[in-house]
């Protein structure tokens, strides 16, 4: 029990100095503990049915309750990329959408009036079904549980209820800083398309049909591959009989798969990533790289190392970053592990904006110290002792024993895995822990993600490494499609031809290789209106350099097929994907750019009724470009494009309707173009622009689209 010379010494001293009758101990070291009572770890009975179903039964007669836990190889890993959230919707609507014999509402009434519950959920590696019932109601409730799993009806309206929840989650995904952090961090490490990181969009949520749920259930809910555990107040032989009745005749399905367990690619390069969220007073920070699988040969040494680093209140992270430095309330981390794929290694903290870089450095320092000041013999012993002494808590309720054994059986691990775990932890040596630290934690390969605001930061993030902005824009819902009729297409084509003539004819338009425009404008910001003058060089089809003079200095924006960056007085930084995309869309929408694209394969123009721009009647034309849709308002009298309407993105990532109206048409070198424009967002004016000069086919400086030779700096 003890084993430290320090304690023995203390005891000896106490014995020498204290009167024997002194019942009150004065220090913890003086305490003597009796041995922990021998405790037999309850084991579930394992039975395999002919159809492949694995059953685990564990009696527990303390309370008149029965619980069931089932796992199916029907996790979100098996979803097609365009059907993200299908596994979760299938599980949810199996539960809510009724069965062959009862509607979903009837099942709800039936269960809740008995204080019983059945819930299904999908995780990445599998789906779960849980039942909890008072013993006396089992006879009535078990058949419904079986029907939900075997013959769900998938009521279409219940799919809509479940879909609303998915859509609400998408809309809310940037509301809380931690949800941004953990989502984007997984994306940085696993890759945006990885089943371990991908997130639903409005498009994927809306594309899922009832037939998809039926097919997913058909393909993945079968007795083979399924593990069903039961714990509670029952007799095993009798329970076995009931389960055979409910599930024995369920035919085995096609060979099951839990889906690819590979963590294929690492998406982002090591470095610093920043997602802007301005309504916070803290930065949320995560850093790390890929972790391991639980069957890794060095798993146990890693577990001990994790305990040293972040085992509760006494680990290095909490002691150093929180207690000693006062930098954080929440701080934890470790090498992550999962049953059948590599987990995430992650160190996490939140700290006030004014200590963002100081905090990130403190975390990094702890990661580096794992090798520079490796775990000591005492730290390792404390960690092992904590694991050893708390081991009994893995077995203190039979529900958790059963739930864990179902999990182990599902992932193909031995049912006594935890007992082996304890023995293996005992065998871990100091050297192995140090090796694990060196082998599994690589601070130089960390992807460091910071979510928060820039203003008030202690130092530039660039101090931590090259900073790449992270785009957290919520992709918009798919635009409503205009019905493409032959008549609409014909009229659309005519109007575009009219617009081409109005601008100066096909030859003039196609002859433009580039334009240089000098303009002034105003932009409405939360701090008031600011005036901007700009010099914009566009080389068609997709390259632009814009020099903007703002009150704070000059900002140069360059967007081309190879690079996209911003140069401000503070330095140069790469442009976020969303910004780059939005500028490229703007280039394609620009009236000249749009008409130059009229012969592209993807170009489609459909007439969509009548409209009005500042009192002038116009015909609306929905134009589909490779980069998105825009609705033009064309004056049928003159052929001039007087307005364009498109979906843009407001600063919160929420979609907004943008309308740009054109006026003051003038002719320059045979081309008639608008010299003034006003842009509104959801009906409110946000900017105006007035051209001072427009030049065509100018000489393009050779370095116009290259980065200046400056060290990169933080945004």
């Amino acid at each position, binding site marked *: 029990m003890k084993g430290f010379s320090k304690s023995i010494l203390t005891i000896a001293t106490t014995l020498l100095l204290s009167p024997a009758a002194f019942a009150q101990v004065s220090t913890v070291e003086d305490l003597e503990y009796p041995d922990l009572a021998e405790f037999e770890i309850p084991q579930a009975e394992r039975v395999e049915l002919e159809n492949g179903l694995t059953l685990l039964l564990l009696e527990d007669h303390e309370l008149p309750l029965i619980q069931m836990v089932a796992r199916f190889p029907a996790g979100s890993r098996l979803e097609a990329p365009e059907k993200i959230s299908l596994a979760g919707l299938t599980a949810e609507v199996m539960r809510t959408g009724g069965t062959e014999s009862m509607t979903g509402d009837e099942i709800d009434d039936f269960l809740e009036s008995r204080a019983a519950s059945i819930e299904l959920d999908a995780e990445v590696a599998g789906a779960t079904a849980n039942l909890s019932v008072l013993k006396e109601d089992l006879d009535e409730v078990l058949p419904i549980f079986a029907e939900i799993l075997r013959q769900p009806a998938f009521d279409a309206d219940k799919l809509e209820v479940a879909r609303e929840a998915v859509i609400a989650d998408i809309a809310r995904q940037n509301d809380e800083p931690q949800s941004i952090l953990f989502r984007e961090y997984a994306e940085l490490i696993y890759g945006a398309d990885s089943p371990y990181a991908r997130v639903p969009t409005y498009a994927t949520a809306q594309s899922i049909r009832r037939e998809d749920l039926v097919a997913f259930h058909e393909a993945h809910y079968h007795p083979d591959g399924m593990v069903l555990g039961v714990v509670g107040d029952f007799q095993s032989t009798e329970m076995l009989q009931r389960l055979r009745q409910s599930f024995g005749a369920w035919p085995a399905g096609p060979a099951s798969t839990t889906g690819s367990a590979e963590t294929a690619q690492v998406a982002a390069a090591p470095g610093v990533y920043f997602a802007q969220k301005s*309504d*916070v007073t803290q930065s949320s920070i995560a850093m790390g790289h890929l972790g391991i699988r639980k069957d890794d040969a060095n798993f146990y040494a890693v577990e001990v190392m994790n305990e040293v680093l972040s085992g509760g209140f006494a680990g290095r992270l909490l002691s150093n970053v929180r207690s000693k430095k006062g930098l954080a309330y929440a701080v934890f981390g470790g090498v992550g592990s999962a049953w059948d794929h590599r987990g995430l290694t992650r160190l996490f903290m939140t700290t006030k904006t004014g200590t963002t870089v100081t905090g990130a450095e403190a975390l990094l320092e702890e990661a580096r110290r794992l090798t520079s000041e490796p775990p000591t013999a005492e730290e390792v012993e404390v960690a092992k002792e904590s694991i050893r002494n708390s081991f009994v808590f893995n077995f203190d309720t039979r529900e958790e024993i059963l739930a864990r054994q179902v999990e182990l059986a599902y992932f193909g691990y031995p049912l006594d895995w935890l007992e082996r775990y304890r023995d293996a932890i005992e065998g871990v040596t100091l050297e192995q822990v140090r090796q694990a630290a060196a082998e599994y934690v690589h601070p130089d390969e960390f992807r460091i993600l910071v979510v928060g605001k820039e203003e008030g930061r202690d130092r530039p993030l660039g101090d931590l490494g090259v900073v790449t902005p992270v785009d957290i824009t919520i992709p918009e819902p798919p635009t409503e499609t205009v019905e493409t009729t032959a008549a609409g297409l014909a009229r659309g084509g005519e109007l575009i031809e009219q617009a081409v003539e109005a601008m100066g004819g096909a030859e003039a338009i196609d002859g433009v290789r580039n334009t240089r425009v000098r303009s002034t404008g105003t932009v409405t910001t939360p*701090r008031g209106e600011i005036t901007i003058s700009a010099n914009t060089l566009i080389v068609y089809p997709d390259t632009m350099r814009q020099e903007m003079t703002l009150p704070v200095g000059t900002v140069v924006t360059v967007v081309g097929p190879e690079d996209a960056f911003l140069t401000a007085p503070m330095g140069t930084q790469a442009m976020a994907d969303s910004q780059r995309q939005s500028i490229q869309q703007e280039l394609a929408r620009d009236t000249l750019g749009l008409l130059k694209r009229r012969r592209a394969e993807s170009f489609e123009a459909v007439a969509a009724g009548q409209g009005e721009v500042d009192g002038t009647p116009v015909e609306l034309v929905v134009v589909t470009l490779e980069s998105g849709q825009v609705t033009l308002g064309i004056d049928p009298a003159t052929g001039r494009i007087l307005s364009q309407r498109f979906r843009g993105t407001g600063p919160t990532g929420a979609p907004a309707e943008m309308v740009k109206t054109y006026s003051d048409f003038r002719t320059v070198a045979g081309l008639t173009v608008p010299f003034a424009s006003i842009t509104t967002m959801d009906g409110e004016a946000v900017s105006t622009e007035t051209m001072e000069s427009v030049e065509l086919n100018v000489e393009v400086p050779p370095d116009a689209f290259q980065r200046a030779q400056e060290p990169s700096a933080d945004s």
Partner: protein
Amino acid sequence: MNRVRSAALVALALLAATAVAMPVAGQDLQAFEERTTLHTLENGWTFIIVERPVAPVFSFATIVEVGAAQEVTGITGLAHMFEHMAFKGTPTIGTTDFEAESEALAELEAAYQAWQAERLSRDPDEEELAELEEAFRQKQEAAADYVVTDEFSEIIQRAGGVGLNAFTNADFTGYFYSLPSNKVELFAHLESERFLHPVFREFYKERDVVQEERRLRTESTPIGRAIEQFVTTAYSAHPYKHPVVGYMSDLQAITITDAQEFYETHYVPANMVTAVVGDVEPETLVPLLDRYFGRIPAGPEPAPLRTVEPPQGAERTVVLKGQAQPIYLEAYHVGAATDPDAAVYDAINDILSRGRTSRLYRRLVRDEKRAVNVTSLTGFPGEKYPGLWLVFAIPTKGTTNHEVQASIREELRRLESEPVSAAELKKFRTRARADLIRALDSNQGLAFQLATYQQLFGDWRQLFRRLESYEEVTAEAIQRVARQTFEPANRTVAMIVTEEPQEAPTEDEAGSQPNAEDTESTGGQG
């Protein structure tokens, strides 16, 4: 010691009478009573011991009758701050040399007080301020030299302790964890030591940690900001109006001296209840409790709170504009947990918002698809004093707060105009009984509940007696309570309205509430 092994209590008799519906439950509850021991020390500390030897482990929860409601402005957040300090150790735990450390801590506090006095003075002298701050920083470094960081927690974890944590709310402060059952003496030693002579080491570093906690839970999350603004608006006089975590300016000004005074006033044994549940035997545990906890001197019970929240008199509305999707909340003042109508509110919550068969779910989520979640609850921000009944909804995308409000209001009106069905009342009682049975399954959960009930009602058995009061809830009572409660002049509405970002909120060093400029708070729109 006062062992409760007498005849079954009235409540349990009643439960036995309802055993027709649930035969096994009655027996089990009676058996539970027989396994329970109540023991009050001479100094006033009350222990509830429940033998539940299913595994060689036990859990405990100490609930102290002090919460944020015992604070006044200037020291808001101190109850919670003390909770953090209760992990910093004792004269024998967490120090290399307590005698020297005590001196260093005294000097540190003097240096802090001097700095703060200048800082809060009418016209602080910049130069002197810098010097005083530097002096404080040096004393802080000096005191830190003696600290063995987090030794208290490490001892517990090393002994196999799990779930080590604590909480503070408006009513109570709670401390809890679980240990293997051979470590009961360690529990008795540590838990008596930490309240016998707490040492306020690392106080000002921990104050930084608590400020981070405020930023994490309140300032950097739209829901946290909305809840703070909502509570502060719903109450006008009672201390329930103050955020439990405290205002930033107070968190930047509370001192060791404040904490010491707070401790001396409120951490008296008469204010403490501890429940121990698991593989423990009263025969061996009670003598340990006497020996260890008996050392703590009795103290006078703190004076009761004087302020009573006046009738609201006018509807209040809080609109928090921000970069977040809508959330809708409305609340009404109701009685405390001891109010005779408390059971009626429990019935209302069950019928309105529990599960997929509840009225609000079926209407707003299933049929109208105006919300993805609707929840109602009582006892916020506390239940020791009259609290709030509230309902909140997460609207579906594209639904406005006002549409959600209209649906909720109609359901509240329906509660006033039509009696609830017998089936709804029956379901409420069935679920409450099943909840109790399920609660008996967790040492930690049970310890927490028993100690809380003992504090709230003066008798842990209220946990079971509650079911008796549920039998008496009638459809008429629900109508009566609904009519008297859901009055516009008794209502506070709070909502988050999506808005493009304004100027980024700046952290006000002086500590006024962040985002206050984003919040409109209007009274008298009844």
